[in-house]
């Protein structure tokens, strides 16, 4: 019962913040709505029993990526940018228009419902497993997989992170004034 409530709350948070991200004109507000979306996704992970992934989502995305985006917006002066609807060929502007959003939303809804109907024979209703008095834990399973089966991927990810660090430092370094 509580899982349904948690799912409902997280889904509500996610969807309302997603609408907020695209509907608002202020880019800082968009970033904050993105924060809400990512929190909602973390809640959705929690309903599936993926506790480690949910907390990773909060730590990396909410605690890192959103702050970085906010810094980037501040540094590039992007917050003064107000999106203007564009005008193509003298017709009514198609970007940021209410009609565009409604049509796109309708198309997306029809698409999703068709897919669900097509796949409904394959997907069985696997509800969340209860584990008695323990809460589902994925940490030790992840640990074992990382060290035994996917150890090469684990090591290569550290090289990837090193590459990202060096690249980011080179790009973001302030240029020396001669």
């Amino acid at each position, binding site marked *: 019962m509580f*899982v349904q409530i*948690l799912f409902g709350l997280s889904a509500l948070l996610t969807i309302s913040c997603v609408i907020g991200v695209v509907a608002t004109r202020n880019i800082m507000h968009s970033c904050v709505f993105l924060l809400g979306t990512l929190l909602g996704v973390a809640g959705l992970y929690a309903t599936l029993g993926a506790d480690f992934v949910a907390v990773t989502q909060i730590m990396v995305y909410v605690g890192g990526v959103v702050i970085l985006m906010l810094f980037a917006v501040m540094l590039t002066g992007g917050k003064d940018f107000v999106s203007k609807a564009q005008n193509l060929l003298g017709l009514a502007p198609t970007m940021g228009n209410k009609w565009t959003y409604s049509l796109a939303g309708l198309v997306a809804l029809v698409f999703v419902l068709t897919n669900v109907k097509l796949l409904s024979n394959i997907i069985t209703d696997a509800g969340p497993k209860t584990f008695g*008095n323990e809460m589902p834990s994925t940490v030790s399973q992840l640990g074992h997989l990382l*060290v035994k089966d996917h150890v090469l991927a684990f090591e290569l990810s550290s090289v990837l992170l090193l590459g990202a660090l060096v690249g980011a430092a080179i790009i973001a370094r302030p240029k020396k004034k001669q």
Partner: protein
Amino acid sequence: MTPASFDGLMPIVILMAIAVALFLGGHFLSVYLSPKKPSHLKSTPYECGEEPVGTAWSMFNIRFYVVGLIFIIFDVESVLMFPVAAIFKEMNEMGEGGYVLIVFLSFVSILLEGIAYCWKKGDLDWVKSYQISANKGKK
């Protein structure tokens, strides 16, 4: 009958809901109890008694962003290390401690090179004050 497992997440949602309720309660309480006398002087941002000049939202030092980037890389690194650290003791007792140690150390050492690179190239230096750099030039 043992309680279902996801009930363990209830306190988190309850505490967040209490926080929101406390915030709204405090807000409405202060709406009722506080005086409302807006004046032009009260709503200008504080600048030590002077008239505020210019907008506050001007471009800032790029150092903030570089620090943020380095932080994200180390954040992802520590997140990746958490599962390995959580099973370290278990594997140690099974006799495979040496293997996990080597996996762990190679992961950490590659990122240690990263921090060494940033240190050497001066990405970790914040902006020094004008006097310090001026004095260094004088010597």
